[in-house]
């Protein structure tokens, strides 16, 4: 078995992994990127539509263009080794980690602070990677039919929207020709247009909420442009067809009650599900990382380090992002924090961060008053002219009017040392009784 040693191992070569690795290598450390596909870029490769990079590059790019820019940024860095077409077979944290299901109870030797990742590829066999730090950048997976439990038969022709996107844009296969889409998030809307542009007919987009969850821009250019009906407050209540999808029953929801008497059928041969993304933390779990049920990702401190020392997380595996620009920001910052950790710097004092009124979650879960802190949050409500507030012990550190908030649009704000100055007395001394930072939306 080959053995390789690095300062850092980045698991995932998509937008998060590339940004983190670029930062780590840029500061002179030696980093391995393990990527399961044959190319870098992750999910960006199949997002051939535009809308990426408006913040980070100040240009509107397609997914592949954004990915290529990220890859180019890493190309000239000598300290990165890429391991493509490689999967992670096993991971071990300082406590030995949890065994993979099916494997014998693997009690390995404790690697003093050292973390171990077993990569597997057809050319290299198994490689044992040891490192002082790991960056979790595995992204997310899609919720599927099983998760939402659509009743009915189980014919061929039911796909998650992302799988259909991959099949169409990368492999050149069209799943079917009469399509119904469940979920009005951006992936579903983009696929409504894409399927139309490859000659399929999209008979409707079905959305359980009374409002669409994707960008209004996408409603206009993906649905309205093609006169595709959007059924708000509706669900697919049954799938029909014994071998291949033949149709679906659509049922309205009024005042939170199903109205089965008003159900109707849409004939179709394909159902695309765009019903949510789940951060893919199976490896994190096996490392012993503690996960946050609100985000589906790890709890992280102010430096984006998880509950396992030396293990960091960024990008969609930490929480599902809407814009890749923020993934790049977060992951670059994470890479910088990994370097600080590797340099052995003293960990600054950190206080707790809590989600207050109307906030579903805020990240990171801790703040460091002596540093610049970038926060990301999602609201629970749809509101115009909302007020974002960050307080410690009743004292307001930040107040900002936001023209419009909704759960599907992430909000970001920054608090630097100046903002904290005096808010809780001398750093580390806990000047106020409760040094907890509460973030709310009103």
């Amino acid at each position: 078995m080959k053995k390789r040693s690095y300062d850092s191992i980045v698991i995932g070569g998509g937008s998060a992994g590339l940004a983190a690795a670029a930062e780590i290598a840029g500061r002179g450390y030696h980093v391995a990127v393990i990527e399961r596909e044959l190319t870098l870029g992750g999910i960006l490769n199949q997002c051939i539509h535009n809308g990426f990079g408006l913040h980070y590059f100040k240009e509107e790019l397609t997914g592949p263009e954004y990915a290529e820019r990220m890859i180019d940024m890493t190309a000239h860095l000598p300290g990165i080794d890429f391991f493509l077409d490689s999967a992670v077979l096993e991971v071990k944290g300082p406590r030995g980690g949890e065994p993979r299901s099916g494997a014998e109870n693997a009690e390995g030797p404790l690697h003093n602070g050292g973390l171990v990742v077993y990569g597997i590829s057809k050319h290299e066999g198994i490689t044992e990677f040891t490192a002082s730090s790991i960056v979790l950048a595995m992204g997310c997976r899609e919720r599927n039919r099983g998760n939402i439990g659509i009743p009915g038969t189980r014919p061929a022709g039911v796909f998650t929207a992302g799988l259909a996107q991959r099949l169409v844009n990368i492999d050149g296969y069209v799943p079917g020709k009469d399509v119904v889409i469940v979920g009005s998030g951006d992936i579903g809307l983009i696929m409504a247009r894409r399927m139309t542009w490859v000659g399929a007919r999209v008979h409707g987009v079905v959305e359980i909420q009374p409002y669409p969850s994707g960008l209004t821009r996408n409603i206009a250019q993906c649905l309205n442009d093609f006169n595709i009906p959007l059924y708000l407050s509706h669900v697919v209540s049954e799938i029909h067809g014994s071998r291949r999808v033949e149709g679906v029953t659509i049922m309205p929801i009024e005042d939170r009650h199903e109205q089965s008497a008003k159900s109707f059928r849409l004939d179709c041969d394909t159902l695309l599900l765009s019903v949510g993304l789940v951060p893919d933390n199976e490896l994190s779990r096996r490392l012993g990382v503690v996960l946050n049920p609100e985000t589906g990702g790890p709890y992280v401190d102010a430096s984006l380090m998880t509950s396992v020392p030396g293990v960091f997380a960024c990008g969609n595996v930490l929480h599902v992002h809407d814009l890749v620009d923020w993934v790049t920001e977060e992951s670059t910052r994470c890479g910088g924090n990994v370097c600080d950790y590797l340099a052995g710097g003293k960990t600054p004092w950190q206080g707790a961060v809590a989600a207050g009124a109307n906030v579903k979650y805020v990240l990171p879960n801790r703040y460091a008053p002596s540093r610049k802190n970038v926060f990301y949050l999602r609201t629970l409500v749809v509101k115009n002219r909302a007020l974002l507030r960050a307080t410690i012990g009743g004292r307001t550190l930040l107040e900002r009017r936001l023209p419009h908030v909704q759960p599907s649009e992430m909000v970001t704000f920054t608090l630097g040392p100046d903002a904290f100055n005096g808010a809780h007395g001398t750093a580390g001394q806990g000047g106020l009784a409760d040094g907890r930072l509460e973030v709310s939306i009103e």
Partner: protein
Amino acid sequence: MESYDVAIVGAGVTGAAIARRLSAYSLDVALLEKECDVSFGVSKANSGIIHAGFHHSPSSLKARLEVLGNMMYDALQRELHFPFRRCGIVVAAFSIEEMKTVERLYTQGLENKVIGIELCSRDRILSLEPKLNPDVVGGLHAPSGGIIEPYRFVFSLVESACKNGVTLKREFEVVEAEVSRVRRHRFVLRSRSGDAIRTRWVVNAAGLFADEVSRILGGEELKIIPRKGEEFLMDRNAKGYPSRVVFPVPSPDSKGMLVIPTVEGTTMIGPTAVEVEDKEDLRTTLENFERVCSSARRLVPSVSERDIITSFAGLRPTLAGNDFYIAVSKAQPHLIQVAGIQSPGLTASPAIAEYVKDLLKQDGLPLVERPDFDPTIEEVPRLRELDPEEADRLVQANPDYGEVVCRCETVSEAEVVAAIRRGHTTLDGVKFYTRAGMGRCQGGFCTYKTLKIIEREAKLSLGEITKRGEGSFVLGSTVGDLPVGGES
């Protein structure tokens, strides 16, 4: 036209077990399956429980064959390498009344000669299965009960049978038969696609369609009533699920809704039991999910709706009288009826095979042992079961083991190729052989890889690949095939 000594109609667990048993003899045996792959009928939705043998009355064929079958699994596993574990079964009682039923089951188990069966106090049963509802007052423990991956079992039986000379004919649906009283090969069986074979004996192991096959063959009238069962699969990472199979106290017509640890580390809850009319009605419903969850929660409090990964339904082929009907046909000579094989059909299958072999022998089939009979099949290594050192050796020997296709279940390309080479050329067939597509993402990431491997290895065009046979095509067309014109 091909000629056989025995044709077995149906390659579910029953037909497959019989085929393998007969393959030990110098006979020409045909195993006929109407679907495009074996185990795609009733056996596709099996719970995978190897019962202990206390549920059925000693006078029933079910009880006798169930206990005999149960004992044969260790040897079978050594030969056929399917996943199997004797984790034990517990029946939980929550009242004095229920305890009385449990005592009757215990007595019945003793009469059926179930090894190791014990009556349990509350403390004893909770120590055996700590995840049980603490309100339990006592119960039954049968250490000989176990769990198995049912389609792996059927696949291995068929592989072994074919290795020893059995001819498997997929997509052979018997729609017509000619019976001659003078010819040595009494039957001509015709398939829907126009194929035909001659045979001396027929074994009707056609599951849900045993009544129709009997009619076609001139057998006695049978009536199969399909009884649907829905089951729900729970996340392997969920905590608080049991390590033994947990049964409630049974009702007169049902073993009840169970909490079943699977041999692969997930948990299943169910099945429901509802008679339906349509033999193809495999629809799942929402109402049942809540009912099943709360029923299961009574046994194991940790059962949570949040843990569900997927659900599926199966149909049991029930016959009036509630016992197996395994006999030489009263109406048609040389026809062996093997009908009404619902629970404990899987458990009993090796014993059913013995029993049918004996019926055939009594009916005049000459049984000469094959000297070159090999009961074993090749063991295909599974990447997910190997530690890094073993995995490394394997990849060096066969690089296809280094290409991970399904990362949720850690399935390598080599295993997918092994499945395809054994005739499993549909997405479901590959899934059942390898587990690719059964994990958290339910095929979201691996489907495109599996499709490409099937295209390459089975030499099928992508448009020909199906989910599980005729009509269930996966892809519609290639980009550019459909005319563009989507705007109004």
